[in-house]
């Protein structure tokens, strides 16, 4: 197992370099010089010369690439001229929001998608199956941004003054504030330390922070704000998961060992869950891993629609403001994040299926 993980880790290094090379090339392809692209049109020659020298842009291209890789290895993803802040700092502020949203969406898609898929497979060709598959087909074809806007319209306007009313944007109602859990607990980590950064990161996830501080008013408010965006974002992965669960279960249910299990008189429940479902898990791990990339892409759209100040939203702002630093830095980080997620999926694969790690 350890050798497998190590080998898999080593294999992702060339891909990481490829990602860096691709973003580096993209940045060099930006029309005009990188200095004015990064600092804005009004940067003077003196400022630009200094900027070029500092980032090694007056050196040959291969050395520039080396400088770029070196900067990234030290956690320096460049600066945003719009926010005049390092990208790393912006990321630490915004990433928790996206992680919270994507995680909620993933939970919804797993907890609804898998049961639906199992039921449609067990009751093959019944009305449940037909309806689920129709709905799954519509789900994978859904423009997330449209669904989000329509949900906002239905739940914030059409259902106004009913118990089903939900807020259409933002993360908390005006007036509510969250106090980071480490301050409530009386811990005072020094700013800039690793412990502080980690605690700060997690305290920015409103729901987690509310649970940790026991503030149930904030919890309820943050939760109601999260429902619509999380549901909108979860549609495509949910549909994919339901479809994949169904086809994997159908395949497994036709196997001889299922017939054996039934023949020896095992009850339906343990045949379905112990014998069939466990073996259907493997293709599911792939589809869940693949949807994570879709979630990150969908987060840009969902956050734009629901006005959430996460990674996706800031990327959108960066695009409209031509803040290449943001676009480049965030793309690198998200791609690396994605590689890491794929690695986790592969490792879980090896855990789920011994045949893989033995090969």
């Amino acid at each position, binding site marked *: 197992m350890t050798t497998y993980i190590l080998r898999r880790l080593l294999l992702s290094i060339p891909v990481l370099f490829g990602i860096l090379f691709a*973003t580096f090339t993209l940045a060099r392809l930006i029309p005009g010089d990188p200095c004015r692209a990064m600092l804005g049109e009004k940067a003077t020659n003196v400022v630009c010369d200094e900027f070029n020298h500092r980032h090694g842009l007056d050196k040959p291209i291969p050395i520039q690439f080396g400088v770029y890789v070196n900067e990234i290895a030290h956690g320096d993803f460049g600066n945003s001229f719009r926010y005049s802040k390092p990208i790393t700092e912006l990321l630490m502020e915004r990433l928790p929001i996206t992680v919270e949203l994507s995680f909620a969406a993933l939970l919804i898609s797993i907890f609804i998608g898998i049961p639906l898929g199992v039921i449609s497979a067990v009751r093959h060709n019944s009305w449940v199956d037909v309806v689920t598959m129709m709905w799954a087909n519509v789900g*994978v074809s859904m423009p997330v941004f449209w669904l989000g806007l329509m949900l906002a319209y239905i739940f914030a306007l059409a259902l106004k003054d009913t118990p089903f009313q939900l807020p259409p944007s933002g993360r908390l109602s005006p007036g509510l504030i969250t106090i980071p859990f480490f301050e409530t607990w009386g811990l005072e980590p020094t700013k800039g330390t690793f412990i502080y950064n980690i605690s700060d990161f997690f305290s920015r996830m409103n729901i987690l922070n509310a649970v940790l501080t026991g503030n149930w008013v904030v919890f309820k408010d943050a939760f109601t704000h999260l429902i619509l965006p999380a549901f909108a974002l979860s549609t495509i992965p949910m549909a994919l998961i339901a479809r994949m669960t169904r086809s994997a279960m159908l395949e497994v249910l036709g196997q001889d060992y299922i017939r054996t299990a039934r023949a020896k008189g095992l009850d339906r429940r343990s045949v379905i869950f112990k014998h069939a479902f466990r073996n259907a898990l493997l293709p599911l791990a792939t589809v869940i891993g693949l949807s994570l990339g*879709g979630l990150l892409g969908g987060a840009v759209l969902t956050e734009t629609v629901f006005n959430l100040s996460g990674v996706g939203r800031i990327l959108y702002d960066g695009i409209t403001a031509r803040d290449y630093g943001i676009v480049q830095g965030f793309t690198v980080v998200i791609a690396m994040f994605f590689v890491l997620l794929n690695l986790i999926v592969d490792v879980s694969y090896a855990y789920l299926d011994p045949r893989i790690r033995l090969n």
Partner: protein
Amino acid sequence: MATITATPAKLDSEALALKSTSLWQITWHRLFRRKSSIVGMIILAILVTIALTAQWIAPYSPTLSMLDVNPPQNVQKRSSPCIHLLGCPQDQPQHIMGTDGNLRDEFSRMLYGARLSLMIGLSTVTFAIIIGTVLGALAGYFGGWIDNLIMRVMDVLLAFPSLLLAIAIVTVLGPGLINALLAIGIVSIPAYARVMRASVLSIREMDFVSATRSLGGNTYEILFKCILPNALTPLIVQGTLGIATAILDAAALSFLGLGAQPPTPEWGSMLGAERNQVFTAPHLVFYPGLAIMLTVLSFNLIGDGLRDALDPRLVHVSS
């Protein structure tokens, strides 16, 4: 799997006559036996009809403001749909889907949007298939360092979530429909390259390829006359499903303001332009989004149907 098993009732002289059925005839038959593919094909047929006839069936030009028609119409910005048949007063001008923020007829814009949407799907996928197929074929046929180089580049492209990579590419190229199409085309290349490479790897070892080679066939002949026709089926399935993804991604880019620019009647950009008006003029958000969904749905349904119809492992029994 070359013939369809007929039920005894249909076993008349006509069915017994030895008439060879081609793969495409079989596929066509199977496709028409699935309700979902029929639904997909109906939606697509309607869309194609709309796209081809938009200039005749649209009541107005898609970029024409209602102030510029003769005589100028007295309509409000973002007015709700007014259909005379459904009881809208006769003295008001008819706008089946209302008007948009620039006093243009939404219905006309929607009709022209079909044209653009289908064009987007077809052109990006054609671009990606051509490049992906060539790259995949080269990688699979020659192997060695060529294979390694091409497939590692594809791995890197796949390492980015597709929409994000497309966003990054458009940011560099500059917003616009053509650049958005190019970006979506580029990010979908790896899928086709992989499919093609896998097919080439399995086909190049077959006897008929060796036969061609021993008869003196050159690389070009072997690749494009022997291998490519046999690798077509997975490419067609991937391509149909790819059109769906391409249309969805293009709409998303336009929604973000990176794709088609106003006043181009593109559904994604129409939706994006009016998204802040969703509470006051929901129809301007509802119709374009619904159209995008139906278009994507039709390609997904046909693609799924094709995949099952072309899959030799599935047992097909006529019902």
